[in-house]
């Protein structure tokens, strides 16, 4: 966006007038479409002769009036019917805006009149009102609604969300849409909102979530209804989940979206390469040809071409799992975009600038018009990885590109003294394609770079039966699971063949390969093994009690040694906790699992105290059975302490599996001790 005040035309990029012309179709009007940055209404200010505003003139290089024709076009006032009239014609409105008929756009969009003529062509639009819409009183009684249908929101949000998030917004892909839930049911506003930040009569602050790189009105983050608002209360008859078998820590550390969006079904942008020119079909705005998008499969993607033809019924199906990443203490599914672009950087490496999109386009257009004479060095840029699109990977390509850009910028009057023209890839930059340095500003843990976006995925929620975990713990805790093991792009276009470097999602989440393996073995076979061992040990305990003539009537008939007590206590704690959880994971709710876990912890603490007491109070020598079991108990206490106090995902996965391994050993040891140990059996 151009500044309000500029010293030369060279400084002026997108003006307010161009913003309305180019972007107004998805802008409801009002705000910057109506008032300039000093609070004046554009058309009134331009019409006032004392302001000396010339139609389409330079107008003192004012970013709000440069080459603008506000007096003729009028402004885009906030168009209430755009949202509140179900039969509103968005394409008609867009057509009027493109024709610079700003003042007439609302009338045409509402279908109140036809509009002939274009201000853009120097014409004065002519209106023909539809008389049949008017009552004898001269008034109109229009079909208007208070709460818009979802199609209204999607009219503007659908295509960008396809690009940013791989969103489809269809009943096929989203259980909420299928259930008839509307956008406004979650993105509440006005009197319906409970949050004081957005509640009020005619307040049009629409409840929003918290996109990591969304910068507008961050003070209003998380004002929308959350999953819990409906699914913990039954609001709108939302089902209240039981989350059978799921420890509550998952619900604290993992966002609902992570499990309930196990898969995406349409591509989202992974890379935006803003350096090379692409000539694929159906890109209507010429300037957009200097953006090449790549999808999750790392293949170039004609997004604009597809978007010009496909509605949600026609979006090409593309299945993949989203990247999962930590954000504010929870794991979310996200789409992180990687950017490659040309910039300027002061030689002290501190101040970065961005050439205009039109400059980059001009360089490439000049070259394509006359490759031999105009920036011939650009011809060295090739498609080294044979994926259909050229890329900058080899040093000679990067140097050629930067040289061409620098020549153009200097010729255009850009002040490059004390500056380098650089190529930025992710969070690094280079001036020669050989040496890469970090940008002055570090990325946040969830982003590739501060210079591109990260989007949380919260829509296209699949049914509960498809959620991660619906097939058991091994949906994630498995060597075959993509949750940890899927490849995540680290850096594209490296080396002479423009290869991609990858990491794993586990690494991104801070989990080592060993940690993944430990979690996998715990759930893939250790759980079952533990169950078998516990049951076997219980059988052993029963055999022990029967063969020694003991009954289970307390306290007279059971005379157990300390060691006997130790072994039986081990078994009881294993049963009342992991044993019951493993057996009952299909029927125990998350709350019950949590309660059993707490009971297990408490019992373990009491037991530990008893063991320590027994060690200190030992009057006679104990057997090898006893001391081995004591060592096992202390090991369990240590791993349990790590689980209680550590928040590190890696440490916890390893400690948890060691704890379960310890349990297998201890229960087995207890069974053997009861069956075969000479611990002073009473006859």
């Amino acid at each position: 966006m151009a500044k309000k005040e500029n010293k030369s035309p060279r400084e002026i990029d997108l003006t307010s007038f161009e913003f309305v012309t180019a972007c107004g179709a998805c802008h409801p009007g009002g705000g910057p479409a109506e008032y300039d940055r000093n609070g004046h209404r554009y058309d009134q200010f331009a019409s006032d002769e004392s302001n000396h505003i010339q139609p389409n003139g330079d107008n003192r290089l004012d970013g709000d009036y440069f080459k603008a024709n506000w007096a003729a076009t009028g402004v885009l006032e906030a168009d209430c019917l755009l949202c509140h009239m179900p039969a509103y014609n968005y394409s008609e409105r867009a057509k009027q805006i493109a024709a610079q008929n700003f003042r007439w756009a609302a009338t045409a969009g509402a279908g109140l009149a036809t509009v002939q003529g274009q201000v853009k062509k120097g014409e004065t639009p002519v209106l023909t009102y539809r008389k049949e819409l008017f009552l004898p009183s001269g008034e109109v009684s229009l079909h208007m609604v208070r709460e818009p249908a979802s199609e209204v929101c999607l009219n503007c949000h659908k295509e960008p969300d396809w690009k940013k998030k791989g969103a489809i917004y269809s009943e096929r892909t989203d259980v909420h849409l299928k259930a008839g839930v509307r956008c406004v049911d979650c993105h509440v506003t006005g009197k319906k909102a409970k949050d004081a930040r957005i509640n009020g009569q005619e307040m049009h602050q629409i409840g929003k979530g918290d996109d990591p790189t969304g910068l507008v009105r961050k003070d209003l983050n998380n004002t929308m209804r959350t999953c819990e608002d409906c699914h913990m209360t039954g609001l709108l008859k939302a089902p209240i989940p039981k989350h059978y078998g799921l420890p509550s820590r998952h619900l604290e550390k993992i966002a609902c979206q992570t499990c309930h969006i196990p898969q995406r079904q349409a591509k989202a942008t992974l890379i935006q390469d803003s350096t090379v020119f692409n000539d694929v079909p159906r890109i209507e705005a010429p300037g957009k040809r200097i953006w090449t998008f790549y999808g999750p499969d790392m293949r170039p993607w004609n997004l604009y071409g597809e978007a010009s033809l496909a509605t949600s019924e026609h979006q090409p199906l593309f299945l993949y799992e989203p990247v999962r990443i930590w954000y504010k203490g929870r794991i979310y599914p996200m789409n992180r975009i990687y950017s490659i672009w040309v910039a300027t950087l002061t030689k002290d490496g501190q101040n970065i600038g961005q050439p205009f999109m039109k400059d980059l386009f001009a360089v490439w257009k000049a070259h394509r018009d006359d490759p031999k004479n105009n920036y011939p060095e650009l011809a060295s840029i090739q498609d080294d990885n044979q994926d259909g699109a050229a890329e900058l990977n080899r040093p000679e390509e990067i140097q050629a590109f930067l040289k061409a850009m620098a020549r153009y910028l200097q010729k255009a009057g850009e002040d490059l003294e004390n500056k380098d023209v650089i190529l930025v890839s992710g969070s690094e930059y280079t001036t020669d394609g050989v040496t890469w340095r970090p940008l002055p500003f570090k990325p946040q843990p969830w982003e590739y770079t501060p210079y591109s976006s990260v989007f949380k995925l919260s829509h296209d929620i699949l049914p509960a039966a498809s959620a991660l975990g619906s097939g058991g713990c091994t949906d994630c805790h498995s060597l075959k699971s993509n949750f940890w093991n899927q490849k995540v792009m680290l850096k594209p276009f490296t080396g002479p063949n423009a290869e991609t470097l990858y990491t794993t999602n586990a690494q991104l989440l801070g989990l080592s390969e060993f940690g993944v393996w430990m979690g996998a073995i715990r759930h893939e076979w250790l759980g079952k093994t533990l169950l078998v061992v516990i049951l076997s040990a219980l059988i052993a305990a029963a055999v022990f009690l029967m063969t020694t003539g003991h009954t289970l009537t307390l306290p007279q008939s059971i005379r157990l040694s300390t060691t006997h007590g130790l072994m039986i206590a081990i078994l009881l704690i294993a049963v009342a906790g992991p044993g019951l959880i493993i057996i009952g994971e299909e029927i125990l709710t998350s709350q019950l699992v949590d309660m059993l876990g707490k009971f297990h912890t408490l019992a373990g603490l009491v037991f530990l105290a008893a063991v320590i007491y027994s060690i200190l109070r030992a009057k006679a020598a104990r057997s090898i059975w006893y001391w081995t079991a004591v060592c096992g108990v202390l090991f369990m206490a240590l791993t349990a302490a790590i689980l209680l106090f550590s928040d590190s995902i890696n440490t916890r996965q390893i400690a948890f599996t060691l704890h379960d391994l310890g349990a297998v050993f201890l229960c087995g040891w207890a069974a053997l001790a009861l069956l075969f140990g000479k611990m002073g059996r009473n006859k």
Partner: protein
Amino acid sequence: MPTRSSLPHLILWHLITLIVISSWQTSLAMDLHARVEERSAQETARRSFMSVCPPFHLLTEDGAVIDPSKDMNTDKPYSPKKTCGRCHDYDRITSGYHFQQGKDERVSSEMAAIYPWMRSPGQYGGRY
């Protein structure tokens, strides 16, 4: 059947009725305050009961009525601000971020350092 002598009375009563009804309608319109702060609890309750917009005149940017049946201002487009703003708080509504797109927000110094080209945190003059 009205007689010649009763006709003037009849006309008079019709006129009085019309005046009363018009006044009542006018008083209804006068009771609706565009600005939320000026609305009484009674008006707020009545608006809530009304729930839907009554028939209304389309108005031009100058506030004049558009009426094709009387060929009034049919060469001018309607102004949502003047038309809807007669009953609704246009300024309050358009203070929403969907309308402002970041224009009403300042760029923090931290943001300005990372994105020197940013004019606002929103789509109008944002990062890209």
